């Protein structure tokens, strides 16, 4: 992810000067990415739209605090993820979140059990359904790093900026998140844990 482009900075400045069209252009530029990331936290199109709308409204209200030190998109992703997590809390759908939870902090036995790749005959939609089912059961700190890395293809540095943690923490959190994902996948779908090769 690049630092804030000149155009983003211009649109932000014009928005702060009261230009509604500039803000509309900012929304248009980032709306698809926001819909993409938020869908991993919501269960319906209506929920996704509500969360994305609230993300942009929060961004608008806090626009004067955007320092241009990180990219506008990283800043916006941070608001989107936090808004999505708030939404889950409000709806009582938040699995364990505390980073300090000792169970979460345990080393996950290094790699843990291996998993097989999805069957070749499996439709993409079915793979996505199983993956989302597994993700939904993960503590949010693990779900978030997996979503940002695997779906949004963010670099470790961007994830660190977004989450306000060090790159080392991103690495270790991602490592544990993958181990948790493997465990949960095998627990829910044992057939995909049968091909341990190592």
């Amino acid at each position: 992810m690049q630092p804030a482009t000149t155009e983003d900075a211009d649109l932000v400045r014009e928005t702060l000067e009261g230009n509604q069209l500039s803000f509309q252009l900012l929304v248009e530029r980032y709306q698809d990415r926001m819909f993409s990331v938020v869908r991993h936290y919501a269960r319906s199109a209506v929920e996704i739209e509500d969360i994305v709308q609230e993300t942009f409204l929060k961004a608008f209200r806090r626009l004067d605090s955007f320092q241009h030190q990180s990219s506008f998109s990283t800043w916006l992703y941070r608001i989107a993820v936090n808004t999505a997590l708030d939404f889950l809390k409000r709806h009582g759908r938040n699995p364990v979140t505390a980073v300090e939870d000792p169970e979460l902090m345990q080393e996950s036995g290094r790699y843990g059990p291996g998993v097989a790749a999805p069957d070749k005959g499996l439709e993409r939609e079915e793979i996505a359904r199983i993956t989302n089912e597994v993700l939904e059961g993960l503590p949010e700190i693990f779900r978030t790093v997996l979503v940002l890395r695997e779906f949004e293809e963010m670099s470790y540095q961007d994830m660190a900026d977004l989450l306000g943690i060090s790159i080392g923490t991103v690495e270790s959190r991602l490592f544990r998140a993958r181990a948790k994902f493997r465990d949960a996948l095998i627990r829910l779908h044992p057939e995909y844990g049968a091909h341990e090769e190592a």
Partner: protein
Amino acid sequence: MMECQNALNLVPSYQDGELSEVQAAPLRQHLLDCFACRERAKAEVSLKRWFVPEPAVAAPTGFAAHVARRAFAGDEGLREVTLRPRALPASDQLLPFVLKLTALAAAVLMVLALALRSRSLPESDSLEATSLSETMEYMQALNEAELETGLDLNERDEE
């Protein structure tokens, strides 16, 4: 020679493209030399295949314009909406006005009706009526007076 545990710790970052060439070169060599670590790395690739890109979720038509309008109208989003009633659009403001006007007109009519009713009520609380016998006597006296008057007129005509 890199140790297996160190190599395995680096595999995820390697597959994420996060290692510098200085870090990646010895790992690559280790994976070429170590069957167990190579198989472990393959298992990581299997894991990644579960994260297939999903079809894009398209924002609804006019989404950006709608959000920009809400933002500039001072709408504070979902949480605040539940606390603060949203401003009604101009078309929806007509109905409450008409209802208030109707209520005011009804109140004025009621006051008028009460005022008129109070003026038409008897001044005394007692409900007394003239008895039938008195009425009959009064009527008879009237008749007699009329007859006498009629006789006087006849006499005058004859004269």
